[in-house]
């Protein structure tokens, strides 16, 4: 495993979610799978944008796991900001939310997200999601956002 990890640059997980238990769940899943990728967490859209716009705050490349229902700036609002930002517009974003509403799905995919994951569908914690991501960044080439 360590040799594998040398071959590609470690992907940072930018987790934007206001629910502490969900964040714990993701950490738990990562620990279980022994995934050591760095995780940066923000509690809402504002915080998320601040972190993303600070070049020192996170290692690149990164993927964003974005919740929809959040205080101050929700996920869809943040997504719109992101797509309008010349630097961040190419970010890879996954929506990770409790909302099953069609409107939310359509609105999110219209902003070119990479995937829409409903939290209650993830079964045993976030294990399956994290497993998927572990494979995802081994296979998928991510843009080098400067």
């Amino acid at each position: 495993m360590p040799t594998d990890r040398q071959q590609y640059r470690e992907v940072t997980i930018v987790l934007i979610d206001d629910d502490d238990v969900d964040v714990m769940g993701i950490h738990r899943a990562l620990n279980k799978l022994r995934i050591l990728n760095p995780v940066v967490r923000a509690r809402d859209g504002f915080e998320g944008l601040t972190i993303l716009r600070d070049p020192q705050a996170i290692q690149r490349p990164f993927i964003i796991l974005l919740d929809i229902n959040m205080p101050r700036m929700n996920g869809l609002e943040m997504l719109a900001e992101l797509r309008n930002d010349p630097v961040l517009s190419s970010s890879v974003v996954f929506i990770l939310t409790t909302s099953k509403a069609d409107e939310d799905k359509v609105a999110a995919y219209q902003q070119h997200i990479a995937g829409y994951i409903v939290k209650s569908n993830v079964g045993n914690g976030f294990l399956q999601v994290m497993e998927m991501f572990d494979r995802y960044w081994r296979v998928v080439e991510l843009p080098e956002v400067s």
Partner: protein
Amino acid sequence: MSLNRFAIFAKTKLVLNDATPTDREGSTSGIKKTTKLAHDSILDGLIRLLIRCYEMIQRTKYGDVYSYLLAIVFSIVNLFLRLLIAPIEGGLQFITFFPCVALSAMFVGAGPALLSTALCSVMAGYFFFPPYMQLTFEFHSDVVLSTLVFCLDGLIVSMSIGAMHRYFIDYRQTAEVMQNKEAQFQMIVDSIRDYAIIMLDVEGNIISWNPGAEQNNGYQKNDILGQHFSILYPQEDIENGKPEHDLGIAINEGRFEDENLRIRKEGSPYKANVVITAIRGSRGKLSGFAEISCDITERKKAEMRMHHLLYEYTRSNDELNNFAYVASHDLKSPLRGIDQLATWLAEDLGDQLSDGTKKHLHLMRNRIQRMERLLDDLLAYSRVGHTDDEIVKINTRDLVQDIYEMITDNRGIQLDIADPMPVLQTSKVPLELVFRNLINNAIKHHDKPEGCIRISAHTTTDGYEFVVSDDGPGIAADNQKRVFGMFQTLKSRDEVEGSGIGLSMVKKAVESVGGKVTLESDGTHGCTFRFTWPKTITAKILNVTTVEEKQYAN
């Protein structure tokens, strides 16, 4: 619409006014007027007498026969008068007969006058030419000539005076018709209370005022006649020249219509819908204006109330939807947190858990799932009837079959679809929801190992009625109303899992397309659900009807 009709009436009236010279025009010279009047009254009296006689004769059953008889009587009377003033051989053979010809023409028209002429010429020939009072067929040329001249003169007199007679009769009849029309018009105008109908002269002075105007504006007829109609406008509008402006539009475009602010006699303003129509005589000359207005203050208030209600209704509806959406999301995330924490507890404690604790944890997760389903269903319920989904062609037989295949767990419950099942153009989501819930209920609540669900349909006047019946336990009469309520279950949720929202969703979905759902059951031998489904539905219309119903209810 109705205002237009009044305008036409108003036009008729002013045209009538146009035909009879008004007092204002006649009052230019007082002296002239009196002489003319004395002169006129004699002539008028005579004409009126003549015409009245004629009309009396004409009104009888044999009016025409009497007319001719009258001409004969005139001729004979004339003969006697002639005999009175001169002896038989005293000449004056024809000249004395003209009065009866003229009178006949004046009284009863040209035809009888011609008869009179013929009669008189024969009588003159018989009585006053030698040989006197004897029939002879030896004609002297001067006698023949005189007779011919008399006949010709009689013809001319008959025709000319007869034409005058005709003219007077026609004139009088027309006048009568017009008077009737005017009286009718006046009656209509006077009986109208909700519309103010006002006539204006070319300058805009008020020349007629109906009770509706009295009611709307507060002025009595006698107070206002002759005043300029700008008295009805607010001071500000008068200063801005609005009254003249409105008349100007009526002159240029034929008609002015607007919602104006008007002022009552006591000074209070009111909103009025005003139509001013320019009235023109036969040659296009402006002869005045008809103004029809209606106090729309109440209507405006009602409109405002309606808008307000509509707004309130939409708002509360939106709020409710929003609430259901937000509530189910916001309630779900802590629930998921609890679920995860319970899982982690079980994972972390592992073997240290006693059987009792394990069971408790299991029950806890079971309740969490139940809660999650309730929230999902609540959300689904709130969305029923709100999806603007497209209208598609649905074969209901296939739809029902597919739903059954999807739900059934091969427990021995058969599906029996009766022919014919309609193919209809409708919104698929609610119809599928209704069938799915009804079939699902029939299977889920069936109490015997084997059973049958029967589905049939028949057309009604404006759509279809579908029947879904089963041979399960049925629903007792006491509970039949309850089952359509939200979160109502007839068994505890530990016995039969269910949120109790299925049938309330069915009801909402059916009612959202304008249908009705009913339940029949004797409480032991299964139950039968019937629901109607319209042939054509449009979501937009539905929303409007519900809004209207809501308003009427309020």
